[in-house]
């Protein structure tokens, strides 16, 4: 019975399956439109953001880790000092997600009933910075220091032998906070996954106040008033950042192969992944005439695909579904938002192309270090 549960979890943890489940469930858990909200309530998913829902979630995650700590393979990964922060991260991310969603749903209920939000206070009420705030901060600071001291004594940082350029540890993992980027590097060229995407993330986050001029929800939690913005943000935060960190920490083993959490990390595991570029598919497999020597002609189909993806889709959307957004924000804001959203979609698209078609690069010009 226990084996069956473990095997099922191993199977479901494969990124192709787990990402699909997350992507399908996402709009039902965080409904971006009223239509999804109807389903959200029909499926009783709004109960997640109540106290009972939070408690049940906590019990499930704790059971999962309990199962992990008693398993001979998973416990080796969980007990590794490097991975302890990821257990913290899972708990804290989900707790604060639950907390903010809980407050948002409470406020939505209050506002629907015509009451003021929970954060509302009469203008006369005051709390002093000193001593009320500073004191709490000071206590928090001391407790945090104590916690870090105990942690650093109990789980010392691993000291290994002197660096040797000819010996990469297997698997060679980045620090935990970079494992999401390392996971992207499996699917993209270094300059895209390591330079372009991180820059887009930072610039995109900085640009949010210029894109999102919705004054509703300012100073108080609310979900109903900001469905789409919260949906997009949580997609980026949970699916594109936290999910790859968890995958990279727990599910990537020797030779960077994928391993289920209860599977043994065996160096001998063989996964056949013959990856093929789009140009190989077209010129060699479909047309059977061999690769043209000129790289631009060779990669023309991929270049057209990428240009169409970033060039045509925004125009099509502007004439169709997103016409209202274009009229509200103007062409520059609209263009930037759609560009960033398309870039956010490129990661799962590329992942699926890799998993289904073994596609290596859509555009592959290794001569010029330009691969997408």
């Amino acid at each position, binding site marked *: 019975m226990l084996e069956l549960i473990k095997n099922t979890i191993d199977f479901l943890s494969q990124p192709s399956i787990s990402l699909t489940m997350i992507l399908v469930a996402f709009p039902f858990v965080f409904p971006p439109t009223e239509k999804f909200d109807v389903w959200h309530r029909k499926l009783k998913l709004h109960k997640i953001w109540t106290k009972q829902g939070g408690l049940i979630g906590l019990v499930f995650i704790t059971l999962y880790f309990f199962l992990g700590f008693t398993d001979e393979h998973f416990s080796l990964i969980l007990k590794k000092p490097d991975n302890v922060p990821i257990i913290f991260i899972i708990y804290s991310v989900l707790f604060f997600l639950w907390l903010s969603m809980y407050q948002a749903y409470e406020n939505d209920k209050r506002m629907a009933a015509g009451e003021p939000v929970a954060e509302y206070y009469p203008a006369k009420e005051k709390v002093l910075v000193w001593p009320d705030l500073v004191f709490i901060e000071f206590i928090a600071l001391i407790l945090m220091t104590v916690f870090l001291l105990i942690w650093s004594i109990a789980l010392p940082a691993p000291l290994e032998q002197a660096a040797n350029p000819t010996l990469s540890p297997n698997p060679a993992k980045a620090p935990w906070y970079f494992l999401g980027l390392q996971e992207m590097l*499996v699917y993209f060229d270094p300059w895209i996954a390591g330079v372009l995407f991180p820059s887009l993330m930072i610039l995109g986050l900085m640009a949010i106040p210029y894109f999102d001029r919705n004054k509703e929800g300012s100073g108080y939690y609310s979900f109903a008033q900001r469905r789409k913005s919260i949906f997009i943000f949580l997609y980026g935060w949970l699916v594109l950042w936290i999910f790859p960190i968890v995958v990279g920490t727990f599910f990537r083993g020797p030779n960077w192969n994928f391993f289920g959490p209860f599977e043994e990390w065996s160096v001998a595991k063989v996964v056949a992944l013959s990856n093929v570029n789009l140009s190989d598919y077209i010129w060699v497999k479909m047309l059977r005439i061999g690769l043209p020597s000129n790289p631009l002609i060779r990669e023309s189909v991929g270049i057209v695909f990428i240009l169409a993806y970033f060039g045509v889709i925004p125009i099509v959307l502007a004439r169709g579904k997103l016409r209202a957004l274009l009229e509200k924000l103007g062409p520059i804001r609209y263009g930037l938002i759609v560009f960033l959203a398309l870039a956010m979609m490129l990661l799962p698209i590329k992942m699926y192309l890799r998993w289904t078609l073994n596609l290596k690069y859509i555009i592959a010009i*290794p001569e010029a270090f330009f691969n997408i």
Partner: protein
Amino acid sequence: MTDASATPTPSEAPAQEPEQDSAEPIERKSFLSWLSVGWIAFAAATGGFFTMMGRFMFPNVLFEPPQSFTIGFPDDFQIGVVDERFKDSRGIWVVRSYDGLYALSTVCTHLGCTPNWLITDNKFKCPCHGSGFRKSGINFEGPAPRPLERYKVTLTEDGQVFVDKSVKFQYEKGQWDLPGAILKV
């Protein structure tokens, strides 16, 4: 600046008054010239600091292993075997195939980790992002965009194999057909 925010009245800030009296007034002109002296000094110090830092990047002596070396006679290498003896010391794999003998770089072309030779799978596999290379150095799995680089191999006069790591041959540039990319033995 409006009047409200300018000089406080004595009743508001009595403590500041005596200090202002004792300090010598600084003229606008001399203040500006002192300011520019200060900035120039600061810029010079910073510039000097970064110049020294830059100089630090070019040490007088570099302790590097030689880039060209002999690795033994061709008959020391079996056909079809990846020789790992020079991986740690020289950073090369020596492979002898039926066509000849070549020296592969041990640097993954994706992000520069050192792949491992998996003899059972007959491939080089990078532990960082899972790139895989065939015995020839051709990339076939994972994200590596191009094959492993080859180094120049020639024969010395006494018949030993001589590897020159300063000359490299890249497959995607069609350089594996050039003389030196593979040693016909």
